């Protein structure tokens, strides 16, 4: 197992480096420098600025510095648009927010999705099964950017129960979490249901029932674990899509997470912030898929690693 993790890390680290280098080169290829303004700076000032930020170094040296700054000091450099703020400060301001509702949404999606899927599978072709299948199909065409306005329409404009945006106590968490988690919950429910149905039809479940185990024990002890495998392998892509969805949540509910900073920096052409967030998200994604793979290997005894 340890060797497996090491081998996975051996892939993860080059991936991350590749991401950093590619986004750096992309930024370098962009027309205009960070100090291109409407009123051109005097050449001497520009030269001084370039010297200060190391922009007159050869390209490879800049890349090395950038990578070294990230790896050694966790420093993404200064923002190009707000000279008084570093990328680190911008990320540090938004990240806790994103983490809060992201983790809540993830937990909600997994817990409700799995429960719904298992219930639907046990009571196949009952009303709860139809409800589960129906909602999971419905939720697939209601991505977060469709959910968000609908939720605001219902709960803020019509009912007036929840604040339409901002970030504060738990009451502000409800709509972002619902908007972000619904479609994942639906997908997880669907996957759980179909894999649970398959497991319930397998021989070891028949054996467990034949030896007289109570149904609850059959489900929880023998069926749930193998049925979780497809769900676990779905968690990786779900994480990526969810972190992408957080951009919409930040935009729509003004929650102030890193998604907002990302779109703002995209519109302001603040490349340093864009890169910083892209790399951070990439690192999280890679880390998460590693965790998922390890989890998978741990749950599935058949897997060889």
């Amino acid at each position, binding site marked *: 197992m340890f060797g497996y993790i090491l081998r996975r890390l051996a*892939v*993860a680290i*080059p*991936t991350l480096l*590749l*991401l950093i280098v*590619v*986004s750096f080169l*992309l*930024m370098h*290829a*962009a027309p205009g420098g960070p100090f291109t303004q409407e009123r051109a700076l005097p050449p001497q000032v520009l030269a001084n600025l370039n010297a200060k930020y190391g922009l007159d170094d050869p390209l490879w040296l800049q890349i090395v510095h950038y990578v070294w700054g990230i790896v050694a000091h966790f420093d993404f450099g200064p923002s190009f648009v707000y000279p008084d703020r570093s990328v680190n400060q911008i990320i540090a301001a938004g990240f806790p927010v994103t983490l809060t509702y992201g983790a809540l949404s993830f937990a909600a999606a997994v817990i409700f999705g799995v429960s719904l899927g298992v219930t639907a599978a046990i009571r196949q072709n009952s009303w709860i099964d139809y409800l589960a299948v129906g909602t999971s*199909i419905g939720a*697939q*065409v*209601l*991505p977060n*950017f*469709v959910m*968000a*306005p609908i939720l*605001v*329409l219902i709960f803020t*404009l019509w009912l007036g129960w929840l604040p339409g945006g901002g970030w504060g106590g738990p009451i502000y968490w409800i709509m972002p979490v619902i908007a972000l988690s619904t479609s994942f919950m639906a*997908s997880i429910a*669907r*996957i759980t249901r*179909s*894999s649970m*149905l398959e497991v319930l039809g397998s021989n070891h479940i028949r054996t467990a029932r034949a030896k007289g185990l109570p149904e609850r024990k059959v489900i929880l002890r023998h069926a749930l674990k193998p049925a979780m495998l*497809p769900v676990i*392998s*779905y968690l990786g*892509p*779900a994480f*990526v*899509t969810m*972190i*992408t969805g957080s*951009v*919409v949540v930040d*935009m*729509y509910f003004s929650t102030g997470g890193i998604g907002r900073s*990302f*779109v703002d920096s*995209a*519109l302001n*052409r603040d*490349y340093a912030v*864009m*890169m910083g*967030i*892209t790399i951070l*998200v*990439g690192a999280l*994604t*890679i880390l998460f*898929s590693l965790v998922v793979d390890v989890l998978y290997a741990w749950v599935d005894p058949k897997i060889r690693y």
Partner: protein
Amino acid sequence: MIDTQQMHSLAARMAEAEVRGRSPWADARRRFRRNKAAMISLVVLILVVAFALFGNHLAAWSNEEMDFSVMGQAAQLGAPSWANGHYFGTDDLGRDLFSRTVQGTQVSLMVGLIGAGIAVIVGTLYGATAGYVGGRTDAVMMRLVDILLAIPYMFVLILLLVIFGRSMSMLFLGIGLISWLEMSRIVRGQTLSLKNREFIEAARATGVPGWKIIIRHIVPNLLGVVAVYATLLVPLMILSESFISFLGLGVQEPLTSWGALISEGAGTMNYGTLWQLAFPLFFFCITLFAFFFVGDGLRDALDPKDR
């Protein structure tokens, strides 16, 4: 989300069905026709396509005209009405929402189809090559796919759009760039199970070059999986484009897409112009629904397992 587990099961089934005498396609056609949800969805899709193609002939206003009698008073005067020819109402600038929806439908469908098309071409060839050649080439090619899959593509796509300017071609390229990855994995898996079969061996024995075997003998046998996957991919591409347009980073005015229209509608619903959200959302939802149902129906028709 496309369920990879089911795709693999489908791939396995397509590979094994060849062995039996009866054509799996004839079977599949019959099963598909019996699937009511899929057939209805197919009709819905045809209607949506017809709306995109011929909707402009029904529109009383073009998508660029501004109705000055409504401009600035969309909430009071811009509601959908037959009398003034704004069947779906107008936006705050007095632009006719019907013709804008037609245009948005055209753009969104095109993005979906082109994105899925790129995925089909690149993904199939890439996956089939990796699977057929095998060995170290395969390992390197699939490792590359692993690496690319680990990149948060939406962020990179936005980075691309910002750096190289927002244009339709960039959007197509960006969406197409990432869509083929999962496809190539599935295709490779099926190629692995195909490549040791007798007819491939026969082709090799008679001296057919490798690339020709891939194109003439492997790819046609992948058609089932590819068709199902492509059908399910179209809505995902539409979703991606809508997502980017929702953020205001996608297609630019005067062009529009479902995402852009939904974004605008969501932004103005506080002022009581609900139709601005409702109509684009309606078309968006029924189309995605229809694609998912057709894709699912196609899969169930080709891989009839009780789920």
